[in-house]
């Protein structure tokens, strides 16, 4: 096992990894930018190194400085968290080459999963259900038009190198294809530095279902159930739950089997998430694999009792998984609310000084956050400031607990999405579990009427 791990991230996920290390008896090194000198994750770690100015490209994503920080502190492994360097194949490769263990998938895994069009192709070749779409990247507009005709409208254009909902365009009719193709290509180029786009069938009101998997060095794979992430705004998840109210036992087994098959097809290592779209007729289609620990991983931990970060560390240290598929038991129900420092109506970021912070507590409530009273939400990074997670014996209890916890949560000084979460959890359709990815938009439209 490692003696010292460098955590190449900030905020709640850095603290989350540091806590797991503390429980495993592993020393930790925090890195930080000049904007985060006073942050909790810096104080929580055994050592800390400033790696650059506030801009993340010059600090948290500054590969030479991050690796030098590992070197001068003698850290044997780096946990990248999510975002920043977590899905940077080059970084993972450099870590491997200088003998620092990257806690995550292999650089080959990251490179393949980062090329969404190619990953889709590999999975399709295995005979697994993928969204009907272009076989690979589209070369030109006529390619796009031909593929769109074959797939049937509406279609969605996506950037191969994309993610997080950026670089996507929905096309409803034939005469929109050319313009949308050019725009998607330009956006892909400017956002991700690679202009490749591909095309998929666009489903109205689908559910976003993803499956958590773990894979060790010996090729043993385990599926830890699904998460329903249908409550989104512009492809940004806001509320997640597990198990999904739309997935029955038979479907769960089937999606789990396909997810594991996809993971084996690409020789995946460590923790990963296989994303699917689920249509109204219970058909599901592979979308992509997220080659990192995800923001919403805690809800899976709540219902399985498995600490995913510790498992990531153990797998990276070369240890075999300590459990098999038949050992996995899903107990109860869990929700997560992502509390962002944003205006709840317009979703514009709202950095500033948090004058008062009082998280909720009690049975079945978990808060993953690096926020404190009198701390600054700095404008340089992601607006996520807290993840509120509840667990209950069933969906009703977990939901009632979330309503109670949301009411208890006090964050003063800045605007947050707390009021929106209260609204979502008091919505009748949401309570019945009848939601799709367009739920939130509808809720917000009703509000303004």
């Amino acid at each position, binding site marked *: 096992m490692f003696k010292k791990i460098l955590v190449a991230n900030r905020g709640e996920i850095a603290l989350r990894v540091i806590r797991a290390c503390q429980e495993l008896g592993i020393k930790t090194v925090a890195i930080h930018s000049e904007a985060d000198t*006073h942050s909790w994750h810096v104080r929580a770690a055994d050592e800390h*190194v400033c*790696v650059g100015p506030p801009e993340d490209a010059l600090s948290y994503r500054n590969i*030479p*400085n991050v*690796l*030098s*920080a590992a*070197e001068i502190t003698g850290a044997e492994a780096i946990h990248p968290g999510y975002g920043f360097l977590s899905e940077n194949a080059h970084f993972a490769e450099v870590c491997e080459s200088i003998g620092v263990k990257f806690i995550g998938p292999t650089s080959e895994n990251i490179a393949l999963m980062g090329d969404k069009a190619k990953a889709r192709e590999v999975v399709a070749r295995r005979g697994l259900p993928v969204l009907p779409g272009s076989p690979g990247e589209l070369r030109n507009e006529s390619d796009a038009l031909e593929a769109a005709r074959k797939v049937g409208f509406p279609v969605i254009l996506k950037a191969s190198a994309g993610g997080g909902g950026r670089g996507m365009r929905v096309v409803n009719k034939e005469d929109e294809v050319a313009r949308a193709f050019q725009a998607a290509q330009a956006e892909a180029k400017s956002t991700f530095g690679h202009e490749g786009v591909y095309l998929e069938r666009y489903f109205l009101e689908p559910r976003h279902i993803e499956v958590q998997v773990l894979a060790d060095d010996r090729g043993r794979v385990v599926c830890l159930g699904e998460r329903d992430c249908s409550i989104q705004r512009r492809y940004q998840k806001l509320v997640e739950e597990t198990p999904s109210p739309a997935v029955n036992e038979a479907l769960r087994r089937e999606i789990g089997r396909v997810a594991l098959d996809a993971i084996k097809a690409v020789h995946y290592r460590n923790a990963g998430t296989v994303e699917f779209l689920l249509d109204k007729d219970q058909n599901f289609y592979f979308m992509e694999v997220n080659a990192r620990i995800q923001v919403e991983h805690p809800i899976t931990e709540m219902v399985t009792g498995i600490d995913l970060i510790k498992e990531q560390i153990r797998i990276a240290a070369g240890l075999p998984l300590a459990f098999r598929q038949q050992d996995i038991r899903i107990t109860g129900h869990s929700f997560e609310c992502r509390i962002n420092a944003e205006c709840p109506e317009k979703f514009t970021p709202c950095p500033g000084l948090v004058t008062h912070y009082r998280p909720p507590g009690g049975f079945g409530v978990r808060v993953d956050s690096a926020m404190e009273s009198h701390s600054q939400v700095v404008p340089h990074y992601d607006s996520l400031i807290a993840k509120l997670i509840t667990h209950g014996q069933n969906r009703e209890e977990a939901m009632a607990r979330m309503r109670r916890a949301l009411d208890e949560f006090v964050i003063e000084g800045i605007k947050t999405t707390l009021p929106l979460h209260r609204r979502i959890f008091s919505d009748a359709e949401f309570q019945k579990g009848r939601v799709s990815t367009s739920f939130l938009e509808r809720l917000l439209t009703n509000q303004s009427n």
Partner: protein
Amino acid sequence: MSKPRVRPRPRKEGGRLTALPSTLPGPSSERTVLNDASGEQLAPIQELIDLLKRNNLTELEVERGGFRVRLRHETGARPAVAASAADVIPAAPHTRVESATISLPAETAGKVTITSPIVGTFYRSPSPDADPYVEEGDPMKKGQVLCIVEAMKLMNEIESEVDGRVVKILAESTKPVEYGQPLFLVDPTPTS
């Protein structure tokens, strides 16, 4: 491994002042003072700002009754640094880092601090048995190599951006340094 040195910028606790200036408003006027933009009402806060600056603090928090004010003075804003250690191939033994970052900490008026532009290991000399690049008291010229910060097997020579004299060497040779850590205190006034 020892804990790497942290920049001597005072942390939250360190910068706190408990003394209460007599001009501090009482609880009754707290909203007015904080929200009203009229110069007259803000005078006490202006005095706190002066107090902060005068004592070279980065942070000041004062509490009286139900009224609390917290001021922070960011000395951050540093020029962007071109670190040429972007590649990881341990081939070229010595690479020049174009500019050492310069900032003006308040406690050394008239002097400049040269800080580390990268994370690495600080060396005062080009090799263990060689003489140091500079000693305290030495005159120095713009573009002169002052030290090496080794990062990922790459020796990055840190050059001075100013003419002047080395007043104090702030980092210890062979010890790790972080981004922004002060390395040299320099008197930029031309010496005859």
